[in-house]
Each structure stands twice: as C-alpha cells, then as structure tokens.
C-alpha cells in the first residue's frame, strides 16, 4: 500500500484486487432498472476518478478493504485495467455505524416493494443482525418494525430478477408481490416473457397466473404443455394489435378455466340477443348463473316511449324470451 501525501493523511493508492466488493447494492439496483449510470461513466471516461473510494475502517490488514461507496467507479477502474485506485478509510468501525451509513446512502431512493425487498435481502446477506433490520432498517424504509413483515419482504426478494423488475416497473404493492411468490415460477417467467405480445397490468398478471395454474392443476399439465396448446399458440402468435391480442388471450384463458360457465353464458347471451336485441329495455342476469333473477331496465326520455315499452313488455315474444332465459336458472 503506497501512501499519498494528502492533508487528510488517510487516502491511499491501492490495487483494485485488495478491495472487497460484497456490499455492492448498486449492481442490484441496476438490474431492477433503477440506476442509470451513463452520466457517471461518461464523466469517468473524461476525467477518470476524481474522488476516492470509501471503505469501512474495521476490515483491512490481511483482509481486503470493505468498500462502502464508489462501487461503480471501482467497476469502471477494473474494466479499464487501472493498476491503483485512491481509497479513503472511513471511521466506520462497527456494524451499527455501517448500517446507518448504508441506510443514509440508499434508503431515501428506494421506492416500491420490490426495491425495498431487495435492499432488506441485501442487508441480510451482508450479515447484519435481524434486530438491526427490524429496528433501524425497516424504520428508515418507512415500514412497520416487525419480524413478520420483514419475512414477507424477504420472501418477495426471492422472486426471479425479471419478475422483480416487472413488479418494480408496475409499482406492485407488497400484497401483489407476495401473491406472485405463491405462483409457479416457470409460469410466472413464461408470462412475463410474453410481455412483447400481451400488455400486462398487475391485475391481469395475477388473473392469468391464477387461472392458468388452476387449468394446469386440473388437467395435470405443466407450463410448457400449456403454452404448447394449439389454441394458446395461435392467439399469442396472431398478427394484430397488442391490446386486441391481450383481450383474446385473456378470453381464451377464462374459457379454458371456466368451460361450462362460459358455454352457458354464451347460450344465455344468444337467447337474449335473439329475443331482445331491439327491445326498448335491456336485459341482465346473474353472470354466475346462481340467482334466478332477470333484470329488465329501461330509460325513458319522453312519455311517448311508454306505449312502445308497454307493447314490448306484453308481447308474446318477450314472454317466450323470458321463459327461455329463466329456464337456465
């Protein structure tokens, strides 16, 4: 280690291999699509490293120095093959101060469940005691300080990166993220992968997951087999606008999940259209087919419309149509 003459007397030039990068959270954030390093890289390319890499004070000697700030600069330096880097050893001598430093550095910028989950998971992996997490860390993240909640966030952190990134983009709540943790991984990944073909909202993702999982369980097939179905392939590959394709795919999945219900609903719909398509009233029924109840509703703009309504209501066609509709209940 070569000492530089600097007023602080604490800055050293050091070979990059002597630095421990295990606390690098910026890389995790980059995967989430949160960090944009392009400006920094540009400035480094132009000016090289202007300020030193910070390390904790409690590691060193035989052990590499534990970097706590300057990860991107360090990665850039390694990429450029720089032989030595300026390093400043801070006065952070214990885990409690270290977590305070990391919280100050990251917590303010962490929005959304996925980012918070990854940060808590990062702290666990960095070896911070659980009490520091349920205490300081959760507080700094604006979360209620209890172990159960921490475990839920840690569960979310186990989701694959692509899915976490999606959750982050859509700003999923903890409940929604947690819901995803119970879905089959392969299926989740496959649906997220189909994002180029269908436009996914949070609720649609969950609905598709739930319905496809049930179909797979009922038919005892796996994700691959489901996506190999001819009807599924056809819809996903149709040339049409993404919104329309999304609608078609959703309808197909519902049809496959509820084959009897959709068939009966279609039949009831057909009967209704056959008898009432140009009626002065609209006809509704319970879509679940549970309640024996047909609702006729009407909007009158003028009293003269009343006689037309009366006539339609008392016609034999209306009676026959209602009789046929009621026979489904």
């Amino acid at each position, binding site marked *: 280690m070569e000492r530089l003459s600097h007023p602080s007397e604490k800055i050293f030039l050091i070979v990059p291999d002597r630095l421990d990068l295990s606390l690098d959270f910026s890389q995790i954030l980059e995967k989430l699509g949160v960090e944009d390093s392009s400006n920094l890289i540009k400035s480094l390319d132009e000016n090289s490293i202007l300020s030193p890499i910070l390390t904790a004070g409690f590691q060193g000697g035989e052990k590499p120095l534990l970097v706590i700030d300057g990860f991107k600069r360090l990665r850039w330096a390694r990429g450029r093959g720089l032989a030595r880097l300026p390093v400043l050893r801070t006065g952070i001598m214990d885990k409690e101060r270290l977590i305070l430093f990391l919280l100050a550095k990251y917590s303010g910028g962490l929005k959304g469940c996925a980012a918070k989950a990854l940060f808590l998971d990062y702290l666990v992996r960095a070896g911070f005691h659980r009490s520091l997490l349920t205490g300081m860390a959760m507080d700094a993240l604006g979360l209620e300080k209890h172990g159960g909640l921490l475990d839920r966030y840690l569960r979310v952190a186990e989701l694959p990166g692509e899915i976490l990134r999606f959750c982050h983009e859509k700003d999923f709540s903890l409940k929604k993220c947690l819901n995803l943790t119970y879905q089959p991984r392969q299926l989740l990944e496959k649906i997220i992968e189909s994002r180029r073909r269908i436009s996914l909202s949070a609720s649609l993702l969950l609905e598709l997951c739930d319905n496809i999982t049930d179909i797979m*369980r009922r038919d005892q*097939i796996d994700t691959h087999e489901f996506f190999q179905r001819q009807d599924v392939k056809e819809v996903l590959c149709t040339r049409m606008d993404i919104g329309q394709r999304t609608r078609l795919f959703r309808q197909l999945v519902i049809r496959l999940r509820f084959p009897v219900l959709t068939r009966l609903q279609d039949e009831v719909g057909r009967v209704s259209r056959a008898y009432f398509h140009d009626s002065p009233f609209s006809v509704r029924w319970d879509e679940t087919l549970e*309640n024996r109840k047909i609702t006729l509703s009407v909007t009158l703009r003028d009293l003269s419309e009343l006689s037309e309504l009366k006539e339609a209501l008392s016609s034999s066609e209306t009676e026959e149509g209602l009789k046929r509709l009621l026979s489904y209940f």
Partner: protein
Amino acid sequence: MKPKRDLKDSFRTFENMKFRSITIHPKVRDTEIAKRLGGTAAVGPGPGLSDYRQGKRHLFATPKRGELFHVCASLDPRYVCCSTHVVSQISNCPFECTYCFLQNYLTDTTLTVVADTRAIIREIMQKTSEQPWRLFRIGTWELGDSLAVPPLNEAAIGLVREFRNLDNCILKLRTKGSAVEPLLDVDHQGKTVVSWTVNPPEIIRGEEIGTAPLEERLRAMELVSRAGYPVGLHFDPMILFKGWEKAYRKLVRSIFSAIGPENCIWISIGSLRFNPEMKKKIENNYPFSRITAQEMVLGDDNKLRYLRPVREEMYSFLLQCIKEVGCGECFTYLCMERWNVWEKVFGRSPFSIGHLDYLMARSVHERFPETAKKAPEKKLYLSLRYG
C-alpha cells in the same frame, strides 16, 4: 404439473392419531372426561398453540367459558338452512381434511374439549326451555369431529346420557371416524343420532387425511345401528372427480347394505364450498390436492361452489341412487343451497327455514317416535324468524 404426493404420504405414516400431550385444566380435573383422559395427563393451563397442524396433536380439557350453544353459523336467509343447533364442545380435530375450514379459522389451535358436561347441559336446558314445543337438533361437530379418536370419543358419553332427559332435544354426533365402541353400551334411549360424513374411498384417501377408511365407517355404522342409535348420513361435501357418478352410486349401495333404510334418520347432501381466502390456504397446505381447480363461482354467502347446474346434476344423481336402494322415505335435504336448486332437485322447496325445521321434526316424530315423542306444530315452526 404432476401432483406431489409426498406430503400426504408423510401424514399417513406419521403417528397422526397419537397426542403428543394431554393437559387438563385444574378446574376440570375432577370431571368424568378428565378422569377418562388418564393419569398421564398434565394438570395446568393449555399450551395455547397457533400452528394448525401442531394443535391437532395436543389435547386440552378445559372448563366451559362463555356461551357454547347457538344456531349453526352457516345460517343465511338467502339459502335454505336446516337450522340445526350446535354446542361447540370440541375445537380442532385430529383428522386433516384438505377442505377443512378450520385451517383458516382457529386462533388457538390446541385441540380443546370442554370437560364440563354439566355446565354445557345447563346452558342447553336454559336456552331450549324457551321453546319447549320445538325439536332442537344439537350437534357437537361445529369445530371438530364428535368422535374422532380415543379419548375424544369418550367425551361424548356424558352428553349421550344427559340428553335422555332433554325431551325436546336430540344430540347429533358426527364423525369421519369409526371409534364408536364407547357408545355401544350406553343407555341412549334413542335421543342421540350418530352420523357420518361419507365420501367414496377415492376422496377419503386423497382428501380426508387420517380419517377412517370407508369399510371401517360402514362397520361402525352397523355397530351403532345394532345398538339402537338412529344413523344420520351426510353426503357433504360431495366432490367432483373423474368417475364421480360410479363412485357415489357404489357408496350409496355399500352404506345401505351395512344399515337398513329404517335405521337412517336423515340424509343431507351438499357440495364442496369454501371462502375465497381458503383457496390459497388449501393449495399451500395440500399441494397434491386438486379440489380447488374445478370450476367454481362465488355465491352470495361469499363461498365458492361448483356451478349451479353442476351441483344440481350431482344432487339429482345422488338422490336417484338413494331412491334406487329403497331409501326414498328417509328425510333428505340439501345443506346450504339455494331455493332454486331445491326446486330443480326435488321439484319443490320448503316455504321457509322454519318450514324445513318443521318438516324435519315431523319426519323424526313419525319415523323415530322414541327420539321425538311430541308431534310438531306447524304454525309454531312457521312463526320462527331467522337472519
């Protein structure tokens, strides 16, 4: 996705019917039930467990706290309800049905039995004496199985004896087990109905973990009917699976070759139903089970059920099977079903919940006069108000 069967198999081999601990609350240490629990039991407060499965292995005999007697919690005026009453003597159950609502219900999961039989009877007497003209059917199975395994089955003996003196009450014990021996020599005077929840062996094996196999239940039915107990049958929950028609027909035939139609006091029919929150619970707790993957819709009572036309088909089919074996005279009703479903299945429906209560009382009085000595008065039942 092939179902994983390892979890279920581990239950089967697990010594699932043995309690890891038995505790008696000091206040009930001198009760008959406490004595039956034996000398190995500890005396003290309950373990206060919160894990559903863990609670099933720890038995706690407790004094009666608060009111235990009430009308069945499922009562909902939008559905036809048989208005049975329950006295929650037992909480949690050593069996483990995949569809059991207790997995989403209990806070203290310790298997608890109220040992204070006298206190229970006092409460029942006080409440049922307000309507002396009414026949109360009172079950102990709301939060567990009435007779699951020893020594739980012995807890029922005291109640069986006490019910002999309650003119307008019938005790309903309901089980998926076969541990009926302690009941056989009790002088019950026809005032206790022993009932079984029945399903084909395919469902028992796959979904009713730890319960008695069908042959054992049939043998137990035979024993209690020989001992003079009226037998109740609950085809509830009926569960859809490939080949369900054949399996349910076979089930009805096996039951009525074990007992005669004259021994059967009533038959209830219902289908699988659960709250939406339970769906995920079942899937997480029992990943091998596929019962939640069927087509279901949400009813007005916030329960998922098979589609109405499917339920109607199942019930009509079962009713047909019951008639085929000459049991058409047994009082048969649907549990928590809509009025329109009754009409499709039976061609009629009761006018009201009170009317169904009356029809049941009348059937019991006519077919089992020892069980209900007095003829029910229709107008009094019709005046009952619910919900």
